[in-house]
């Protein structure tokens, strides 16, 4: 995708405002099905009728990943319900076809083909792990589908057919490390991750940033197989290295074992500074507040964020899914997907994938629970980075926030 072909927004506004007034009325944000015949908003044979538009939702409702993906499924459904309650998109109600990827990557590929080829969905909200995204990517590109992907991930990817509503690696890491240096005067870092692409890429960026840009030192870098539950030897190594900061990206069941054993070995928030990329409110349920109290997490969203958008979102979410439901970083990012799609469709005045994609860069969402977000030309979001401290009751207290929106940079120069 190249930027020159996109109508820049000032020019577009000028066109709408002066040259094409009747068109502007038709394309106005409260568009009507009557005013917008299906033949006009859908020229590529998508499943759009005068009253309805069909979208797909592709997550793991079963299998290992169901733990993580349930929140995303719920958040996307909530957003779609809210949009429908407001009258839908271009006068059409959204109907969702739910498919289960079952934590199995070939199944994800097969189901995405079904959604795009058989069901002709206008867009898909889905995937969670990088592995599932990589599995469906060739199909989305071949069939020219559109995917809204919610998870923070390792970057190094950009596709015409994907909008990434989570953070790429630099957005999550750089601010956290700078904050660690300034506020906690951390000079030595111990990097720990689960052994797969996301932690390894993240730690590579972290090492580069610490060594080349901060003048700090990496005193240890360790990776453990997914599902590993015994960290005592590692903890002894940490005790020898005595880092100012433990920088962790351990995921899944290992995560819980890691924090329980840190606490059992006497490494607590009171005695050691720890910053992690992989503990949200969802993980906290398993880890337990007492094991994470005093440690810090770097994310773009926390449930306790104090703004009006978020209060309304948390209230609606709890109303829909019960008072005990928690909202993690990815859940919020998944919630953005349908809203961003709605804005892009309304801006394009069409459900056609090419037109929606062309309209996407520059789309703003001032109503996002995390605050304001905007789609960059590289299909990632501008968003703020935040640091929060774990509390004994399992909640997070936000202690720092990047002053500016972090520019998404999926292919960071100097970090490869």
């Amino acid at each position, binding site marked *: 995708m190249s930027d020159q072909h996109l109508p820049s927004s000032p020019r577009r506004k000028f066109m709408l405002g002066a040259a094409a007034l009747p068109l502007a009325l038709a394309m106005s944000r409260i568009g009507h099905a009557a005013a917008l015949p299906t033949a006009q908003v859908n020229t590529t044979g998508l499943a759009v009728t005068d009253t309805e538009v069909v979208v797909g939702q592709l997550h793991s409702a079963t299998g290992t990943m169901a733990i993580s993906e349930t929140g995303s499924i719920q958040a996307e459904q909530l957003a779609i319900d809210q949009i429908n309650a407001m009258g839908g998109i271009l006068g059409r109600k959204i109907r969702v076809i739910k498919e289960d990827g079952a934590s199995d990557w070939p199944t994800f590929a097969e189901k995405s083909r079904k959604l795009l080829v058989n069901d002709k969905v206008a867009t898909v909200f889905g995937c969670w792990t990088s592995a599932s995204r990589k599995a469906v990517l060739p199909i989305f590109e071949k069939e020219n589908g559109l995917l809204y992907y919610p998870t923070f991930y390792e970057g190094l990817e950009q596709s015409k057919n994907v909008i990434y509503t989570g953070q790429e690696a630099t957005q999550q890491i750089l601010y956290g490390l700078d904050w660690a240096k300034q506020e906690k005067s951390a000079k030595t870092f111990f990097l720990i991750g689960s052994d797969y692409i996301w932690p390894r890429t993240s730690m590579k960026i972290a090492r580069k940033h610490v060594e080349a840009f901060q003048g700090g030192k990496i005193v240890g870098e360790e990776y453990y197989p997914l599902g590993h*539950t015994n960290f005592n030897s590692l903890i002894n190594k940490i005790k020898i290295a005595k880092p100012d900061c433990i920088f962790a990206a351990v995921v899944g069941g290992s995560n819980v074992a890691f924090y329980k054993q840190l606490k*059992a070995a006497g490494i607590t928030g009171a005695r050691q500074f720890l910053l992690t990329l992989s503990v949200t409110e969802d993980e906290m349920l398993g880890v337990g507040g007492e094991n994470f109290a005093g440690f810090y997490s770097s994310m773009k969203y926390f449930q306790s964020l104090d703004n009006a958008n978020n209060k309304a979102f948390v209230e609606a979410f709890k109303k829909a899914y019960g008072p005990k439901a928690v909202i993690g970083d990815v859940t919020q990012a998944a919630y953005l997907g349908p809203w961003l799609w709605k804005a892009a469709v309304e801006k394009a005045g069409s459900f056609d994938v090419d037109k929606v994609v062309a309209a996407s860069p520059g789309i703003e969402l001032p109503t996002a629970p995390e605050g304001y977000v905007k789609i960059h030309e590289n299909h990632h979001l501008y968003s703020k980075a935040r640091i929060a401290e774990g509390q004994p009751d399992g909640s997070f207290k936000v202690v720092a926030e990047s002053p500016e929106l972090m520019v998404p940079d999926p292919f960071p120069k100097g970090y490869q």
Partner: protein
Amino acid sequence: MSFDEIYNITLMQGFAGLSLFAVLLLMGLGLAIIFGQMGVINMAHGEFMTIGAYTIFLLSSLTESHAPGLMQAYFPFAILCAFIVAFAFGWLAEWALIRHLYKRPLDTLLATWGLSLAMQQAFRTLIGPKEVSPTLPDWLMGSWEVTEGLDIPINGMFVLGLTVLVTGGVLLALYKSRWGLRVRATVANRAMANATGINTTRTDRVTFAIGCGIAGVAGAAFTTIGSTGPTSGSLYIVDAFLVVTFGGAASLWGTVVSAFGIAQTQSISEFFLSGSMAKVLTLLLIVTILMLRPQGLFASKVRR
């Protein structure tokens, strides 16, 4: 680094190896009875551990909401319950499934694997897909600070103590009790045991249920170390089979020695190498030894 620090780290590292040994042994023990003594390849072993862990979670939630005063005392009682619940499910599984398959040992692999999948989905549907952690009593958390810089994890000591207790109990029962005698007789020669008046059907059922019950205890103990989710069992099953096979299938002592060997290799190599490399090294070593000695460390003296 000062001498004191090296001394402390060595002690803590030694304990790390011991606590991993306890974990592996506890995992393998139930399987050693079922797989080693009965020859049933129980792929659902991990799920019986998960049942134990969920029992703890359930009781901890119940205690928290109905009798918060008992929070400090419920844990040993909950472990007993975990044994009973897993024992009951094991009894049921043997009656419904396993007893039809004693003559086809390889088919037990498929049947119990199916059982494991069914149980995982049942956990997911009935309890929920999210990982849970029971609220532990305060005395089980944190570390025992012997001296400055020397921290011994309390949960590690607890698991170690429990393992010693359970292992001792199993060995005693197997070699000193009437039940043990019947089990050993059935294992050695089923037809002959039957002929001498041993009710082998009943023996099998009790043995299988006890194996599952011990798996439940193991799962209960692991709630102090990790979390519990519907698929937690699949994390443990490979290690459990590794320990039992490496030790020599029919020997309980073999299981103990093999758990110790694997734990020490893993923990020491983890200290000097990175985590993933340590795993590779340990597995390589096990494969090599098993190639040279296919019957495992301790050969079975059973006439088949």
